[in-house]
């Protein structure tokens, strides 16, 4: 039986950090002002969204640049019921959920047979088409004016209380994602990243696997969308632009693609950096683009990757653990699957 004592030092440190992070996220709202609190809430929602994208981009190796289409459809679902009909909070969430999952289903059906660059291009087109519909269907989406009149339920109306709703949902979803990526399904997704050809040889239906991946990832994106629309109490086409889809990908690669912690760290860095940059200059897209370029060129393993290699170098110097190369390998693999995919096909 595994007890705390015979866990490896690395696992103990990981658990300690996780515990510290959760404790900090519970205590923080008592220490900061409303503005920072809202940023923290946004960072938590973004973390969830980035994790759902990382399930595809990192674990499965299929980069999506249209996932804001799923998130945004869920937001519009909630927004439509809230602003154009008399529906209560239950109806709003239900319609938002169904809309988001419907988008994920359609996206999945369209993209499930494609791979590599084709997959990326199809997801871009999907996201852009949601944006196009959001800007054109004035009666449903209010076009550029967006949808107003979305209100949080009275019991969680304050930013303070809403933060805890988001935190609880995010933690529950993280736990679910942890279980999913360590399940047979999760390993099949990793197999898809390694070599789709070999996975097919082993008898897996890779197209269905990708479709299920869309549904699972879409579920978490939908939840993030519902949380986001109640946070902003507003939805407009700028929530579904290409930049909104690229942002969670950036968060994932900045934090560390193919891990669950990476997107969370990336989300917090990006949300606070964006806020800070916007206060200095009006050129956020340039900064975002430059971060993209610099991370891809110089830090493809992201912050978590850098931290991990530092940690393993440190403990291997003191000699407390065996060779950690396997985990290092997994990580580099997550980033460099592109070259593998080229070789295997």
């Amino acid at each position, binding site marked *: 039986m595994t007890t705390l004592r015979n866990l490896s030092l690395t696992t103990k440190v990981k658990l300690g950090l996780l515990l510290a992070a959760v404790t900090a996220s519970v205590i923080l709202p008592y220490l900061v002002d409303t503005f920072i609190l809202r940023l923290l809430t946004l960072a938590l929602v973004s973390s969830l969204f980035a994790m759902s994208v990382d399930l595809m*981009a990192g674990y499965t*190796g299929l*980069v999506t*640049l249209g996932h804001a289409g799923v998130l945004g459809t869920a937001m519009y679902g909630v927004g439509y019921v809230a602003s154009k009909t008399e529906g209560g909070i239950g109806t709003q969430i239900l319609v938002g959920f169904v809309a988001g999952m419907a988008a994920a289903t*359609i996206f999945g*059906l*369209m*993209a499930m*047979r*494609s*791979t*590599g*660059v*084709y997959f*990326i*291009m*199809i997801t*871009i*087109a*999907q996201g*852009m*088409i949601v944006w*196009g*519909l959001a800007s*054109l*269907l*004035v009666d449903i989406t209010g076009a550029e004016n967006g949808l107003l009149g979305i209100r949080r339920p009275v019991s969680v109306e304050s930013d303070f209380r809403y933060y805890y709703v988001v935190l609880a949902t995010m933690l529950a979803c993280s736990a679910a994602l942890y279980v999913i990526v360590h399940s047979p399904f999760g390993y099949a997704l990793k197999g898809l990243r390694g070599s789709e050809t070999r996975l097919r040889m082993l008898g897996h239906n890779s197209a269905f696997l990708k479709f299920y991946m869309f549904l699972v990832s879409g579920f978490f994106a939908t939840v993030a969308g519902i949380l986001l629309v109640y946070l902003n109490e507003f939805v407009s086409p700028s929530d579904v*632009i*290409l*930049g909104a889809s*690229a942002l969670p*990908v950036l968060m994932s*690669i900045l934090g560390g693609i193919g891990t669950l912690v990476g997107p969370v760290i990336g989300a917090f860095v990006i949300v606070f950096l964006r806020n800070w940059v916007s206060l200095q200059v009006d*050129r*956020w*897209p*340039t900064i*975002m*683009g*430059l*971060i*993209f*370029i610099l991370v*891809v*060129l110089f830090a*493809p393993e992201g912050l978590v990757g850098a931290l991990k290699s530092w940690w393993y170098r440190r403990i291997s110097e003191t000699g407390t653990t065996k060779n950690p190369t396997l985990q290092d390998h997994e990580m580099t693999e997550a*980033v*460099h*699957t*592109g*070259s593998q*995919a*080229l070789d295997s*096909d």
Partner: protein
Amino acid sequence: MYDPIQDRASFVGSSDLPKRGTRRLTVDGEPSQLGDTPHGLVDLERRDRIRTLGITAVVAVGFIAWALTQMSLLTFFTQILNGLSFGAILFFLAAGFTMIFGVLRIANLAHGGFYLLGGYVGITITLSTGQFWIGIVAGGLAVMVLGLFTERVMLRRIRGMEKPEVLLTIGLTFVIGDLSLWGWGGDPRVVAKPSYLKGPFQIGDSFFYPKYRIFVLGLAIILAAILIYIDRRTKIGAIVRAGVDDRETIAALGVNIKAVFTAAFMFGSFIAGMSGVIGAGFLALLPGQDFEILLFALVVVIIGGLGSLEGAVLGAALVGLIDSFAKALLPELSFFTLFAPMAIILMVRPNGLLGKAT
């Protein structure tokens, strides 16, 4: 006509040289008559392609018949020309995109940004020199230099890694788009056209159509003809096609593949920049258009087939026509009408109408 016996003959390896349409491939070091697709022979692949084209043609004819009942003949022809001239711009973009993808295997998502930047540079140069043609060349050259920098300094470091390459180009798009907004402001901008391209062109008594759009259409047809000629009949085309099929072998044969990569990227960038200036003659440039035009270019290559020049021609014409008729008949759904054909084509042929199976 498809002949199964003929297929079987080439399957077991007849002593004759392969026919047109089949290719020799090496399997385990032995020359073989097997096709390079998991579906079997290249002939089957070709038959499949022809069948898809047939179905597309039938659907297109049906749609045209329906459209004719909805509008007068004159409006109908105007819409056809609108669609084709928009398709011409899309062809410029898709040709460059497909060229870069075919040779370098990079989906250059900065292509929309290149279009926008080229257009803005062209507008500025045309204003200061008063020469439309100098503006077109300047727009192309400016973007070509940027393309050279992108390929040599950035993309070369991550050569062969599909995803990092794509992510880098998307990052570049954001930088280009935002800096263009900074440099040229947010107002829609058009290029100053020379006087001989202004005004309408008259056919018969009652049919008027803008000269400029006809000029763009003509330019696209000329470029398509030249490109297809180069691709099919010249040594440069042979090198490019060989590079698309097998990079290692062409490099081993003594071709400087790195130079070919750079040249292809610069050429693709040049057409993108040039098309920005030409497009600014009837599609006003404004921030955000980089993504919109990128979407159209992506749909063109997804429908036509990535890496295929003929696919770019076909896809551009189809998307241009679909867009023009949809805007006239179903204005609120004009994005959806783009989406639906793409979805259907993807379900039938995941690699596009004229794309090769991978």
